[in-house]
């Protein structure tokens, strides 16, 4: 019988990060996947990043994960969203060649030490005394392990709907995973059903591109990964997306199919995401909106397929086709395959801990859509956390939990466990109360120390970061203490249309003005300090210093709000605290608290359904 430290179910975005991190930490890892060619497959849109999701990719990269690298190497368009706003909401987004993405992901896994890929499907998990000891596979094998990380995506009892016909499967043309849900439920878990959808795929050659609005990438493109070297980037030729719109005539045709919609006829029981509704949902819920925007995204450089973003649907194929042809630019379009909705099993995530290990079975970890999230980035983020924690536990090292104030990843997992989503969860910047601190540009400064500690970040890279850290702190001191005289700076101040100086002023104070750039002031100041020279030669450090000076006041105020909350993070609730003893807590509060078993008062307070008075009672009780 084969034996591994860790078995990972699924070779998607979560599975890849889990496998690569645990293997680099020295564990023997097996990835079990039904189809080796489906490794790292982008099941839905051929894009990585976006608002808050880009932040996740940067964080994964800082921890030593691979999503950023793979996206950089397979990227055919790069844009930074929200560039007109402040750095905290800048977010990288790439269009990717789906095939190349998958190939590179597989290559990383194959080239990694300690990983074996097994083409099979897991039908049951085996536990002994509430501890995972192995799995059974469809091919009839039993494999032993110390930890099992389930990253099953939409495959657990996957059921795809187009119109009133439904097909078993986790993804177009792929078999579902059956049996595993039952074996986990039998261990005492609660499962639920979620739904997501994908739009039709169109034939590139049948679209009238000339009449469509073009959306090119940024020049120059900015990569996600710190490991991507500027010389080779971008690796692939860059392409554009295009924009078109639905109109009333399109909506009318879609409405014709409503009586055959699995969504409206009640065939689909799972809950879908509100932020990513199907086109039929949009028409019904926002009937006053005359048109809906659609993005035509290439699936790859050589691919015939075009992904029509914004047109996710499970209406019958004939209706989809008829409606598509009413859309500007798509008059002659050929639909290669229709959109569909997919329902799948998930395990409401109150059942996992902040390490993503399940609360009732030791060594069992969940990551990705099984925890109710949607999105590649959310999945990958959980994958790396689960992989690191599984390895740490096997090596008897302390667990790895990121705080909400440290990372979007911390926000993600804390939200999952505490709020136990019942719709597919997606990250947004507004979910992070520490938004001004959790920026893409400082992801390495926030998180690389952990990646380094776990051996996922090289010495060289970490040393560079530490040196920069020293430069940043020295520079801030110099800038605080150095004054600039009006003669040196006034012509610059005039040029950016901000009031001139009458008296000398500290550089720090001037840089706080929105119109003023640090670099220009430092140049004007003709300061001959070695530190400042060094800073001017390190654009990354310069950027950090500038952001920290400019937004200091806001960051301080954000901290004020947070500090109240943080105090509660330090008040811990004993493991296995018995809430039924507290007669005075509201019924709903008691139920939720017993389910989630929060670690701290802070976590308890964020659970929906737990009232401030419940928290007060808990606090008083814990104090006594």
């Amino acid at each position: 019988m084969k034996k591994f430290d860790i078995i990972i179910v699924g070779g998607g975005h979560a599975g890849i990060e889990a496998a690569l991190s645990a293997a680099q930490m020295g564990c023997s890892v097996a990835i079990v996947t039904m189809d080796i060619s489906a490794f790292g497959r982008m099941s839905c849109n051929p894009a990585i990043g976006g608002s808050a999701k880009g932040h996740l990719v940067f964080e994964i990269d800082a921890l030593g994960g691979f999503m950023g690298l793979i996206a950089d190497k397979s990227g055919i368009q790069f844009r930074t969203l929200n560039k007109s706003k402040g750095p905290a909401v800048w977010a990288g987004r790439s269009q990717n060649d789906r095939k190349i993405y998958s190939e590179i992901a597989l290559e990383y896994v194959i080239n990694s030490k300690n990983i074996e890929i097994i083409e099979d499907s897991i039908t049951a998990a085996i536990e002994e005394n509430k501890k995972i000891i192995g799995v059974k596979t469809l091919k009839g094998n039993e494999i032993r392990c110390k930890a099992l990380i389930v990253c099953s995506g939409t495959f657990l009892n996957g059921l795809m709907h187009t119109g009133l016909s439904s097909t078993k499967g986790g993804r177009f043309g792929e078999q579902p995973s059956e049996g595993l849900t039952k074996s986990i439920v039998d261990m005492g878990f609660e499962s639920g059903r979620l739904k997501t959808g994908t739009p039709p795929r169109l034939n590139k050659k049948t679209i009238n591109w000339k009449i469509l609005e073009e959306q090119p990438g940024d020049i120059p493109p900015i990569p996600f990964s710190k490991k991507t070297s500027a010389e080779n980037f971008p690796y692939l030729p860059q392409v554009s997306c295009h924009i078109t719109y639905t109109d009333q005539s399109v909506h009318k045709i879609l409405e014709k199919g409503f009586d055959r919609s699995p969504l409206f006829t009640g065939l689909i029981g799972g809950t879908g995401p509100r932020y990513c509704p199907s086109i039929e949902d949009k028409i019904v819920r926002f009937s006053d909106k005359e048109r809906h925007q659609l993005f035509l995204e290439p699936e790859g450089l050589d691919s015939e397929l075009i992904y029509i973003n914004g047109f996710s649907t499970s209406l019958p194929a004939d209706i989809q086709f008829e409606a598509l042809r009413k859309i500007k630019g798509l008059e002659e379009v050929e639909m290669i395959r229709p959109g569909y909705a997919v329902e799948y099993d998930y395990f409401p995530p109150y059942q996992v801990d902040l390490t993503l290990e399940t609360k009732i079975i030791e060594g069992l970890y969940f990551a990705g859509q099984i925890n109710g999230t949607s999105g590649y980035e959310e999945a990958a983020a959980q994958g790396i956390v689960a992989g690191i924690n599984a390895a740490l536990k096997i090596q008897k090292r302390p667990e790895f939990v990121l705080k909400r104030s440290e990372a979007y990843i911390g926000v993600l997992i804390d939200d999952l466990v505490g709020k136990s989503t019942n719709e597919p969860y997606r990250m947004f910047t507004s979910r992070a109360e520490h938004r001004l601190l959790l920026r893409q540009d400082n992801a390495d400064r926030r998180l690389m120390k952990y990646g380094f500690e776990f051996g996922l970040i090289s010495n060289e890279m970490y040393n560079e970061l530490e040196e920069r850290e020293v430069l940043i702190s020295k520079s801030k001191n110099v800038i605080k203490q150095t004054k600039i005289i009006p003669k040196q700076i006034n012509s610059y101040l005039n040029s950016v249309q901000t009031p001139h100086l009458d008296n000398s002023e500290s550089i720090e104070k001037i840089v706080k003005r929105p119109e003023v750039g640090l670099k220009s002031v430092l140049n004007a100041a003709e300061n001959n300090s070695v530190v400042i020279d060094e800073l001017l030669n390190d654009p990354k450090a310069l950027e950090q210093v500038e952001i920290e000076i400019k937004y200091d006041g806001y960051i301080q105020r954000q901290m004020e709000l947070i500090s109240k909350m943080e105090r509660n993070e330090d008040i811990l609730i004993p493991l296995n605290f018995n809430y039924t003893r507290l007669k005075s807590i509201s019924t709903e509060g008691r139920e939720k608290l017993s389910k989630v078993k929060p670690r701290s008062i802070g976590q308890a307070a964020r659970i929906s359904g737990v009232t401030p008075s419940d928290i007060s009672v808990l606090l008083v009780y814990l104090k006594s």
Partner: protein
Amino acid sequence: MLLSQNEETIVALATPGGIGAISVIRVSGPESFRAIDNIFSGKQKLVNSTTHTIHYGKIYSVDKELVDDVLISIFRSPNSYTGEDSVEISTHGSPYIVQRIIEIILSQNVRLADPGEFTRRAFLNGRIDLAQAEAVADVINSNTEASLRGARNQLDGLLSQKVDSLREKLINTSSLIELELDFSEEDLEFLSYEEVEKRIKEIIQELDFLISSYSFGRVLKDGVNVALVGEPNVGKSSLLNYLLKEARAIVSEIPGTTRDIIREELVIDGILFRLYDTAGLRFTEDLIEKEGVFRSKEAVRNADLVLFMNDVISGFSENLWIELKSITDPERILKVVNKIDLRNPQKDLFDVGISAKTGEGIELLFQALKTKALGTKTYSEKSAVVSNIRHFNALENAKENLTTALSSINQKLSGEFVSVDLRNAESALGEIIGKVTSEDILNNIFSKFCIGK
């Protein structure tokens, strides 16, 4: 076993402030009896007394100064409101006395109760049920010094509604800002900064109205302290005598706790005024009267209003006026001239003319007191009125944050910066009504906007 067994001993005023001759101060916790025994002199020590007994005696300050005659009820655990050893002290209903007594108790290793703490302890110890506790939870950050037994008043209900609606407006505005940050790729019409600015200003305006209602609300709740000041023989005592004899408004006469200060209470149109007369009070350097001078200055400083009494014979006392202005805000001083039955006063020097002998002008004096106390803004019974200092501070805080948000907008900073202060403001308002959740904004966005490219 008591769940809150190892709790500290706490103290707070248990009755609502305002009209009423008696206030009750509640002390709860294991050290209650010991703490009060240290400052209370009665027939027997409380530690030796049986539960549910009432004790008459005097409260002394740490330096043995008599503060008030009181009645003390003692409740032994578990048969008390909180379930712990508790003492309830009934004192004369003067905020000044209550404040003094609480201060003295605080010096006995007792701390001030947190909002809702008596109730939480009662709740933890199973003394009140879930429904009662939930009702208290609603006002958990509000007037929790008032006991659970004190019913939530109409005003508080209106205030919660008002604050809730302001918070909703704020969340709507925040949502629009967040929308642009998280969904900039969507085909949506984003709010212009002018519109955001307009909305914030509207909210500030409503906050201002609530904030300015505080003086009114406080007056309604706690009453108004009026210091009666004047040169000897201008008729201060005559005025008090007149009020005592004639005015229908008089509710009680309570001898002062110090020899120098006499207090009268009267109610004008439902508002309680406490008149502190400082008999023989004069601003002087005379050593013998120094103590009296000190007290008088304190009285003036602590008063909400000063009734500055003159008479038509001696005219306006310039010396006293200068002295008064140096220790209190001139806006708080009501310039009154007495003895108008003898001679016509110099009208432009005074706010009101009266005759304490004939009663002429007394009605005008009442109206003038009322106007000074309430300000000129009018509040109907349907307006939300702020009467609690915590609410007042939270509203001030919210306003301050919104003002900062406006300045961010003026500097053309992007949404995530404006959002910092909007969220702080939202949290301040949330504290009043006990609502805090970050999900509100996203839920609002999903329900109002078509998201999903």
